[in-house]
């Protein structure tokens, strides 16, 4: 299988604070990958570099062999942890907007999901609750027939029932053969869906492994996470 994400000697700092320190790794296509690490470990920075939101870094971050560009953006469906739709938009406007720009966007599916999610078609984003906005953003991303889905903390700050709903939506809607990269620190809820995991912390890749190997060592992903990130709670 070919690598969908290739990272080579990637470094990124904010002032004197180095969040990614010369990291390198490759991720094969067709997997569900857990990007794991505690808060502030650099997961979001890595993702923002991959999707083209952070541009001042050193090293290479490649998607399908290309640096972030209109070409890579056309194949990546990205769900940020922030709500980003303009206040004036209504779900119908957002669907038309995505249909305008992404050739892989399935408009019919989006309208069907809008109804099944019980989101009003003509209510403005401004008057929606945060939960409704997040549902709409998830819908927009999962109605794309993308090669790579990059989902940044989709489970953060939601209750267990919502988590199950979000996971179910991701699992049932991503096309076969596509790659899903999901960042989270809530491992217990999601470890069953991962094929492989990438754990980053203190600016380094601390573990890259397929889940089967972890289980063959008699551990769960959560056990591995605790072992890898013990340092975070240790007093120097």
């Amino acid at each position: 299988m070919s690598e969908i994400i290739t990272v080579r000697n990637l470094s990124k700092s904010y002032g004197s604070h180095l969040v990614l320190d010369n990291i390198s790794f490759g991720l094969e296509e067709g997997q569900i990958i857990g990007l794991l690490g505690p808060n502030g470990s650099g997961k979001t920075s890595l993702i923002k570099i991959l999707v083209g939101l952070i541009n001042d870094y050193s090293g290479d971050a490649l998607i399908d062999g290309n640096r972030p560009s209109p070409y890579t953006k056309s194949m990546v469906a990205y769900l940020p942890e922030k709500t980003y739709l303009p206040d004036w938009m209504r779900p119908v406007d957002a669907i038309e907007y995505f249909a305008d720009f992404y050739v892989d966007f399935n408009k019919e599916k989006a309208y069907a999901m809008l109804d099944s999610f019980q989101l009003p078609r003509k209510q403005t984003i401004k008057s929606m609750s945060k939960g409704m906005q997040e549902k709409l953003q998830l819908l927009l991303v999962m109605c794309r027939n993308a090669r790579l889905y990059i989902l940044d903390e989709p489970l953060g700050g939601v209750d267990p029932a919502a988590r199950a709903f979000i996971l179910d939506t991701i699992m049932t809607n991503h096309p076969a053969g596509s790659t899903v990269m999901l960042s989270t620190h809530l491992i217990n809820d999601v470890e069953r869906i991962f094929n492989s995991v990438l754990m980053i912390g203190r600016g380094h890749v601390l573990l890259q492994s397929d889940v089967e190997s972890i289980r063959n060592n008699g551990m769960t992903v959560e056990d591995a996470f605790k072992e890898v990130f013990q340092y975070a709670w240790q007093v120097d």
Partner: protein
Amino acid sequence: MLGKLIKNEFKATAHSMGPIYLSALITFCVMLIFFVIKNKPLMVISSVALAGICIAALIVTLIAIIGMFNKSLYGNQGYLSFTLPVSARSLLGSKTIVSLCWVVISFVFAIAVTCFIIFYWVAQTSESVKGIIETVYNALQSMQGMPDSETAIKSIIVILVYVFIKALFLIFKVSFSLTIANTKFMQKMNTILAAILVYFGIYIVLQVVTVLSTYIPFYVAVASKGIALSINDTLIGLPQDTKLFVSIPIVGPLFEIVVCGALYAITGNIMTKHVNIK
């Protein structure tokens, strides 16, 4: 993709600009009602209101342009804009075109409102539309030194081109300032404050160049016998007794056109390579 970006930019900005023009339309209708019922105090109030809306339209246009670059590119909406499968230069180009359209619309609106208010008050002394036009025309003709209609049209075109260049220059300066304010060098500062500092920095530098350009005294002159190049009030190719109506400097606007091109290229480059969305 540029067409789709422009369409969506218009949709987005119409939400802030629409209410202004809608309120102008309502005021316009109310003024007609007051005219029919011949209530002079209400006619005065509504005329002042329309003039106020006209000024508000110019201010809201400027705010909408700043918002279009700052909020939709470098705010949370940047997560949407910068992950679209389009180049940074297309994003910049679409926003510049839409901004320019709104500036032109607000200028046309301001001229239309001024003309309407003049006609509105002249209409009280005439009973027919033809009578109103004749009254205004005669008033203009009686003003000393007024050009003939052909020269007047040429003068208006030259002035409009000049204003168009100035508007384009303003938009590029705004987009450049906001983009610089969102690079890592200035991200520790408040974005708007950083943008204002950058804007005035550019303004001072360009003002110096503009002042220096006045030492090269080339002008486009609209005169009673045509359009000509003038140097120090000397018309080239036209008789010296020709009456001069409008004289616009050439070097300054030419320099501004060159700077517009440079700012477009530099801003696009910074957006692609140096901007971080917070």
